[in-house]
Structures are given as C-alpha cells and as structure tokens.
C-alpha cells in the first residue's frame, strides 16, 4: 500500500494532522513509536488553551496561538470533549510588572483578542480572594481555556481512525529513504511508502529530519515539572493564574483543570536527554514556591502526584512548519508552547502547504462523528445516570472511586484501543484521583485481562518493559 501521507509522531500535533487529513479522500498513515498516542510530550501538557495574547507577533507561535484558540472552541464541540473557558489572570506582583501587563494587552488587542482588561488590585481581590495580597494589578483575559490534552489526542485519533486513518503504533522510525517520487519510512515493524511525510516527531523531529537528509535544526528538550493537587482545593481559583512571564518561561501557573483538580507548574529547565522526565526535589519545590507566590493558600500536603514533561524547543525558538529541500518531506517541528493551543491551526496550515505542494485535497462526502467521550457518567444528572444504567448495568458499577469512572467507561476505553493501564487511565481518568489507583488499578487490570483474554502478568503500564505484576513461580508464566 502506498500512502498519500505518512505522519511521523502521534502527539497532539500528529493527531490533529491525522484528524484534518482524514476529512479528505486520502490514504493517511500515523506512525508512533509508543504503544499509544499522546504518551510523550502531550501527556504531560498542562492543558491550557492560551488566550491569544501571549506570543509575539511575527512569529509562527504568535500567529497560530490565537487562531488555534478559536478553533479549539469549535473542535471540542465537534469531538465531544471538554473545553472550559476559564479565563486567565496575569498578575503584576510589583509596579514594575504593570507595563508588562500593558504590553501583553496591546499585543492581544492588536491581534483582535477580545475582552483583555486591566484590573486593579481590588477587582482582583474581589474576584479571587485567594490570590496573594502582594499583587498590585492583573490582566484579565476571558479567552483562555482549559482542555484535557490526552483526551484531545484520543478524540482526534479515534475520529481519524473512524474515518480511515491507518495506524502503526509501537513502530519506532529507524530510517527514511527517498525513492523516485515517494518516500519509504522504515520502522522496526516494517516499511511504509508514502508520497508525503509529515515530521511531527516532537522531541525527535531533528533526528527524523536528519534521516530524510534535511537535518537542518536541533531540538533541545526543556523540562517542565508539574504538581497535581487534591480536589479538596477545587474552587481556590476560578481562572488560570499567571505570573508576569519571563523570556524563558511563562512562569509557574495555577491551573483549575477541566476535572476539578488544581495543577501547578511547569518549571523550565534545559536538559540534554530526550527521555529525562524525572521529577526532582528542587523542581517540585520551585513549582510549589512559584504557585504559593501567587496563591498562598496552596499547601504541599495537597500534592497527589508529581510529573515532568519535555518541551521540544527548536533552534530559533519558533515553530518550524514547512517544506524542505527534500520534496514531500514537511516539518512540523519545534512545537513548544503554545503548541497545544496552536495544534488545530498548525494542522490547517499544513493542509494548505500540502495543497500547495500538489496534493489534491478532495473533501469526503461523509465524515463519521463519534459519540461524545465527554459524556462522563459521573458528570451526568441522576436521571441521565439512571437511564444509562437501565440500558447497561455496567454504567452504575463504579471502578474508579476517586473520579467515579464506571465499568462501562473502562470497557469502552479498552475497546477504543486502551491496551495498557495508562491507556485506560488517560482515556477515562481512572487512577488519576487522590488514591492514585490504589482502589482501581487491579480492577482495571482485571477488566483489561478479561477483555484481551490474557493473564494479569502480561499487562503493562504503558507498553515496552513496563510490566505490572508477575506470575507466581509455581505457575507457568
């Protein structure tokens, strides 16, 4: 089979590309080295859809931030996933910060971002009493929103698959060869031929580009550590709270996530290794201190999990999106912040590039929409829950007691491709709550084992060597 387009990388960008391309009459392939999509940088993203005023004009990051923001609003509705426009407060903690707020307001106003308003100290205090007394003013941006980055990945991916996307998971790319007028993407699991290759390989985009002979840039991993806090703190902030940004980072944010938890972070640390996702005492303390500077009521004992992710920073500090001297090989690289926000706009831009490169984009007459994944059982009214339970009793059998996830939702996640404990967790939230899977992990494992007709000891946390349990020695393994 010769594909029209092969996408290398199944992060949110790769998934957005897949979703966009499967609207057209094309044979599209997604190649991903991990066992699931969204398991790299996207999984650790904090889920902020930036307001549109954060990135400098004249950069791809700036141009695509606002466009992406507007597209997510509609996209989330189409995908049936959560999107909450919580708004943002960027705090000035000293008088010296106020001109920075004004600069961000001008930047957003110029781009047409609506509603940017400078608030004085009292307005902020009235709105969110938990914010530090040291704050002197804030810039309010109503357009900032939160989504669940992994939920977005899965929804984009599932829709794309339902519309003909072919998928090669667990296929690390080992080489890319030009053959006459097409490309052969070599992987551990076999070769794939495609007219166009989209390099959405995230942290490894420089290496993939080099394989195609166009290694003109390097990707530098920049680690961010984040702390997830207990739901007990739900409501402590209504908006995402930003400090005044610095050149290297947007600073430590306090984020009311889509699911009612509070996330704080991320830190920003240059690292060398592309798999260096360790959390550190220093990083965690920095995040905590940064968050407490904005919202002093946050307590370290409310931390339920710490994790880290890597931003893919390209040389030049901007996105690298476009054709290369190798015809048909298109970079979608260096997608750092605001990459999640920009992802749909990036996909749109890449479609335009492909059209310019001669790929015929003929819309399909029918596009399959999937039922909303966001209709989570726990979030429904009692009447709706009773109705669903009458249809399928597994809806009222609760497996994850922290997040209220039902057996039916777990089974749906498994049938949608959740092959691992993390695959179930990131599709359903089972295991993300305060008990961190103590109640539900074995239950999810038992359901997965039953669905796949396999013993518990064959299951993994996230593929590869991440086995969960072993068989007793007297039993055959």
């Amino acid at each position, binding site marked *: 089979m010769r594909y029209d387009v092969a996408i290398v990388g199944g992060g949110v960008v790769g998934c957005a590309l897949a979703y966009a391309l499967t609207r057209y009459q094309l044979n599209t392939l997604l190649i991903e080295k991990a066992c699931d999509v969204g398991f790299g940088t996207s999984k650790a993203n904090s889920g902020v859809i930036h307001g549109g005023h954060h990135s400098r004009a004249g950069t791809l990051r700036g141009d695509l931030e606002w466009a992406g923001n507007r597209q997510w609003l509609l996209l989330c509705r189409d995908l049936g996933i959560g999107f909450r426009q919580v708004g943002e407060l960027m705090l000035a903690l000293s008088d010296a910060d106020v001109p920075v707020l004004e600069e961000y307001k001008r930047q957003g106003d110029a781009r047409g971002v609506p509603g940017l308003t400078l608030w004085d100290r009292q307005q902020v205090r009235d709105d969110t009493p938990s914010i530090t007394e040291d704050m002197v003013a804030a810039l309010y941006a109503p357009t900032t929103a939160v989504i669940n980055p992994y939920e977005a990945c899965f929804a984009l991916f599932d829709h794309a698959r339902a519309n003909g996307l072919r998928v090669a998971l667990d296929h690390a790319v080992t080489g890319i060869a030009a053959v006459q007028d097409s490309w052969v993407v070599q992987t551990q699991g076999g070769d794939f031929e495609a007219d166009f290759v989209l390099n959405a390989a995230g942290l490894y985009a420089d290496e993939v580009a080099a394989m195609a002979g166009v290694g003109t840039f390097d990707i530098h991993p920049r680690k961010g550590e984040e702390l997830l806090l207990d739901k007990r703190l739900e409501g402590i902030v209504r908006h995402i709270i930003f400090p005044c940004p610095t050149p290297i980072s947007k600073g430590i944010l306090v984020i009311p996530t889509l699911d009612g938890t509070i996330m704080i972070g991320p830190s920003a640390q240059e690292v060398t290794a592309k798999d260096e996702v360790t959390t550190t005492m220093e990083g965690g303390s920095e995040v905590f201190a940064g968050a407490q500077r904005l919202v002093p009521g946050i307590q370290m004992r409310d931390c339920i999990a710490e994790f880290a992710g890597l931003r893919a920073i390209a040389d030049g500090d901007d996105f690298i999106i476009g054709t290369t001297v190798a015809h048909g090989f298109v970079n979608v690289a260096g997608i750092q912040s605001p990459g999640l926000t920009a992802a749909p706009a990036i996909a749109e831009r890449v479609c335009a590039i492909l059209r310019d490169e001669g790929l015929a984009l003929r819309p399909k007459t029918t596009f399959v929409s999937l039922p909303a994944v966001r209709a989570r059982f726990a979030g429904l009214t009692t009447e709706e829950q009773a109705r669903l339970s009458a249809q399928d009793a597994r809806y009222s059998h609760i497996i994850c007691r922290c997040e209220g996830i039902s057996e039916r939702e777990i089974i749906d996640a498994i049938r949608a491709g959740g092959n691992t404990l993390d695959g179930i967790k990131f599709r359903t939230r089972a295991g993300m709550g305060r008990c961190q899977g103590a109640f539900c992990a074995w239950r999810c494992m*038992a359901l997965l*084992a*039953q669905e796949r007709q396999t013993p*518990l000891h064959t299951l993994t946390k996230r593929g590869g060597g991440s086995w969960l349990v072993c068989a007793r020695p*007297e039993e055959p393994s």
Partner: protein
Amino acid sequence: MTSTITTYLCIGCPLGCRLEVEEEDAQIVAVRGFSCKRGEEYALQEHTDPRRMVTTTVAITNGRWARLPVKTTAAVPKEHERAVYAALRSVVMRAPIRLGDVVVGNIRGLGVDVVATRDMSEGDGV
C-alpha cells in the same frame, strides 16, 4: 565450661526489651533484660522452643478470588515454618470452601492441621 549469651527482642509491648539468655554447658543459668514477668517467660520460650503460627494462602480454582487464606491450627516449631509454607505451594483447593475446612491434615507430621480461614464461594477468580 562454655558460656553463651543469646539476645532476643521482646515482642510483648512497644518497650522492646533486649532480653538475654545465658547458658553454661547447655544449661540456662540466667535470663536478663526483661522488665515484666511476660518478658522473662517469652525469653525462655523463644530460647528453648520457638514456635510460629503459619498464615498463608493456597491456590483455589473456581473461587471468588484466586487465593484461599489458610492457617495452622496451632503454632509450629520455628524450624519447620518454611517447610510448612513449601508444602502448601502445590496445594490447589476447589470452591466452595468453608471456614475451618481442613486444607492439609497433620501437615508434615507436626500434629497440626492447616485450615481455611474464610468461606470462599464460587466465582471467576478475579
């Protein structure tokens, strides 16, 4: 004449007294370090005839869970403890089981039975 001192950690209470048993020519000549009568008794028992209750699980097919908890009906000499565990490794029971059902009678000839410590109804094992 040989004199040996063996020490034990008293398990009677959180004080955890360091107990000493002194022997001369295999005869106990002194017990020291206890701060209550129970401590002294424990030191002598642990020195002359240490015993352990064995609690573990055995495999069960057709049960609600994959393992059935069991125990010995009395403490067994400590030196036989591991052998009792080893002997139970190959045991496979079948549900239904009732609390007190004998899993292995007179295990390893020690004069104690291994019995089930709960009812186990039939089920799918997980």
